């Protein structure tokens, strides 16, 4: 059991960091292992925002000279950026092992990202003009405070509280997943994918990379594969209903869209609120109530239902 949530402010920015924190905190009982956010700010044309981690939280606690290794890895990441002609315009340490870079770059970001991820311990959490992907161990308040999300202004967001069932409790297996190499595409998932290994082998034969053993990562890779083939987000999500086995409800966010898909057994919950200027959806009503305390009308999407909203 995990909790997922999504939020769109149409035509305006809002404090989506604090709002998603409240929504995910209300879902804490669905999964206390880790919390993740994919928040979308105003797109910065020409510059990229890169969120990266160079170690797991657990590694930091073990010692064994990890601090020195982390510094080495950060140096290697920055050297790789320079090699690819990227200029670091800003650099922030969110934690000792997680960094946020603003980089100027007009080359191939995919090749650069692949090279960076060859560095031991390095994992790009997100790369894009608008997306900032933050995930770590702990509940929504802990992660939000740690990464300063309380003041984040943006148009839309998705988030996840994780109850680890089929892979480790670590940042690598936490959601959201970035749909590498597609800038600004992120995914959160609640459920179990039963043809994970079969589909993973299919995707790996097509050249896609997996960084974890978490079945949810398949949805990110699957979406990236479809996008690479020129398939629209909505069509990709429709295809997933027939091609992905298991019980699932998942959300995908891009720079200007937010989509929801529910499996053909309708086994995983989703509650939806829609108005002219706000869309909020979550695994439970209580999460929507965290940002909309007034009386509202909500609905439950049915089996095999796919919805995609423009931001």
């Amino acid at each position, binding site marked *: 059991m995990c909790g997922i949530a999504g939020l769109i402010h149409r035509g305006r920015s809002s404090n989506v960091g604090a709002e998603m924190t409240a929504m995910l905190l209300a879902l804490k009982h669905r999964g206390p292992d880790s919390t993740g956010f994919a928040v979308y700010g105003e797109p910065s044309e020409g510059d990229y925002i890169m969120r990266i981690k160079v170690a797991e939280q657990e590694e930091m606690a073990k010692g064994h000279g990890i601090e020195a290794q982390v510094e080495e890895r950060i140096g290697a990441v920055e050297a790789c950026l320079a090699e690819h002609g990227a200029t670091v315009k800003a650099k922030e340490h969110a934690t000792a092992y997680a960094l946020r870079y603003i980089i100027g770059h007009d080359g191939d970001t995919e090749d650069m990202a692949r090279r960076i991820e060859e560095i031991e311990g390095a994992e790009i959490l997100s790369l894009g003009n608008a997306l900032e992907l933050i995930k770590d161990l702990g509940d929504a308040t802990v992660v939000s405070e740690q990464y300063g999300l309380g003041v984040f202004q943006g148009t839309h967001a998705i988030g996840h509280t994780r109850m680890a069932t089929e892979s480790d409790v670590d940042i690598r297996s936490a959601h959201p997943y970035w749909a590498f190499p597609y800038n600004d595409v992120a995914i959160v998932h609640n459920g179990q994918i039963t043809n994970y290994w079969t589909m993973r082998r299919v995707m790996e034969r097509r050249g896609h990379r997996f960084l974890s053993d978490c079945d949810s990562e398949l949805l990110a890779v699957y979406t990236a594969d479809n996008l690479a083939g020129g398939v629209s987000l909505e069509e990709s999500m429709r295809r997933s209903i027939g091609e992905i086995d298991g019980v699932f409800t998942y959300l995908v966010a891009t720079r200007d869209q937010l989509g929801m898909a529910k499996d053909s057994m309708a086994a995983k*919950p989703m509650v939806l609120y829609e108005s002219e200027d706000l869309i909020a959806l979550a695994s*439970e*009503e*209580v999460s929507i109530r965290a940002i909309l305390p007034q*009386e509202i009308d909500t609905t*439950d999407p*049915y*089996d095999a239902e796919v919805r995609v909203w423009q931001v």
Partner: protein
Amino acid sequence: MAGLSHEERARDMGLTTEQLTGRTQQVFFEPEEAENFTYPWAPEVDFNKRTEVDADAMTTTEVNSKIRALMKEGHGSIVIRNPRGMHGLGVGILSRLNLIFEGSLGYFAVGLIDGPNVRISGRVGWSCAENMMAGTVLIEKNAGSTFGAAIRGGDLVCRGSVGSRTGIDMKGGTIIVGGDTGMLSGFMMQRGRMVVCGNAGKDLGDSMYDGTIYIGGEIKSLGVDAVPAELTDLDRAWLTRKLTLYGLLPEQGVDRFQKIVAGKQLWNYDNLEPLEKKLIL
């Protein structure tokens, strides 16, 4: 024996393969039957003794404990304001009570109740009124999946639409939905009646053992062993009375309703004992 058909083998062994076809297709009942919403031994309360509770800063446990404390003080009408979609509110109430929620509730709302009249002005999450035994529950807006799972009695009414697996394993009572219902509604239903004024999703009444489902709109597909049956005058009279009671009677009446019952053709409806099955198989 090997060359014989299943039926021939059974007959030669002195067994019978009579199929209990259509046993429930004509059920006689009293359309004005008494509802028996509360048991005669349920404690008397003073419905005129009314109080209100603001749940805005309270936990589920605190709200439920407060309801019990107020009932002990003799309150027969309790209004809960600002329930904020909390889970598990109003559960396990086993006596007469008018309980009003002004707002929406989360999962497992008013489960395991036996007698109260509950009114919810908002919506409810999954598994509302699970295992309800008696009483009435009226929801003004929508409801989530597994609405009325395994209920045994009483009236459970949602004026809006409900999610999937409505009335799964229901063993009695009545579920009424003003809007649509999702897939697998009435799955493994054993007894009772379900009325949906709108449309039903796929696999309606799948593997139902007994009971009756009435659908006012379109049915996406019937489940295994769910079959249409004739809508009788008794059905019409009962539907008219019941839907009128909750203000859900369609303008055009109930003639368009389709009636779905168990075909009783599944393996568990043959009349062979397990040992006999083994011998044949």
